[in-house]
């Protein structure tokens, strides 16, 4: 045999690793959206994958781990995949910590972190199918939602701001 077995094995390993990486990034891109923007006023932005914050407009899709922020006199309205509706008032920061809506696989979860500001919400299918899995976290409380229409206001204390604030 003209070829050494070892380098070819190494080559396959490298190729496999590259393919796995490619598949990984493809998977991340193909992750289904958690919801979409229905309305926005003023400065309403998303920070995703360490990219610079981008202005949100109606129709933009929202994904798990997105950090959503509004400035003064701004607001944001969202419709999530389980048909819950959610909105942010001014000077708010919401992190989509976890959002799973695949009833056929039994994957149901919705955890949002309101780091500061105000939010209104009417829960949807996830709360109906799996009432224990819908939560809103704030700097001082864990809110378990058994349904359905509620409002939350959170003051972001000086030591309660997430580390991403200003940390470029």
């Amino acid at each position: 045999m003209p070829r050494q077995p070892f380098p070819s094995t190494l080559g396959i390993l490298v190729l496999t690793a590259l393919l796995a990486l490619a598949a990984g990034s493809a998977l991340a891109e193909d992750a289904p959206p958690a919801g979409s923007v229905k309305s926005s006023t003023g400065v309403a932005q998303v920070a995703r994958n360490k990219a610079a914050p981008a202005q949100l407009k109606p129709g933009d899709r929202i994904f798990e781990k997105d950090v959503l922020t509004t400035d003064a006199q701004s607001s944001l309205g969202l419709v999530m995949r389980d048909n819950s509706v959610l909105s942010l008032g001014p000077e708010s920061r919401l992190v989509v910590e976890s959002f799973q809506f695949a009833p056929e696989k039994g994957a149901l979860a919705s955890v949002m972190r309101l780091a500061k500001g105000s939010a209104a919400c009417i829960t949807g299918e996830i709360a109906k199918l799996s009432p224990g899995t819908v939560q809103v976290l704030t700097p001082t409380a864990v809110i378990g939602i058994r349904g359905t229409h509620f409002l939350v206001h959170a003051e972001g204390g000086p030591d309660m701001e997430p580390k991403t604030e200003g940390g470029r």
Partner: protein
Amino acid sequence: MRTARLIQLFLFALLAIQMLSACGAKTVVLLLPDPDGHVGSVVVTNAQGSQILTQAGTATRIAPKAAPSPPETLSAAETEQLFGPAQRALPTKPVRYILYFESDGVELTPESKADLPKVLATVRERQSRDISVVGHASKAGDEAFNIGLSRRRAEAVRKILVKDGLPTGIIDVTSHGSANPLVINNNPYEPRNRRVEITVR
């Protein structure tokens, strides 16, 4: 002057709000009735305790290192100050349509064909930029075939919507085979399970 007094009052209110917030980070949770009148419940918990809200219009306050306060009713002014803008930004609930199909194919029933203009009217009315089209099949036959059939049904509806002028990019198409029946009974040919569900967000 009346305006001068108003400004004075406003400044005083601002000061009061600032003094209140100086007390430290605080959370307020308020429970409201659903659009249909039903009232749910929320459980608010931290390391110091727990409080459940079950009455519409009641709220609990959670200061750091203190248990959530007993349920209380907030003044209209405080409710507006804390939640007014968020409440006004809350979208209305999405609208769902179910279209039914003739057996074993992608042909809509005449009744469902007649529903298509309503779907399009809702899309325009809501100025929707997010529409889900989910295909389903009844239990009859082989599941591999049903998965394909449910996908073809969803695809057929997507094509109709695009032909009627909706941008492709706003429509998400998925299919579930026979895994999510609308009606659960002993009839594998249940016509109400041969369907596509359209959610207009």
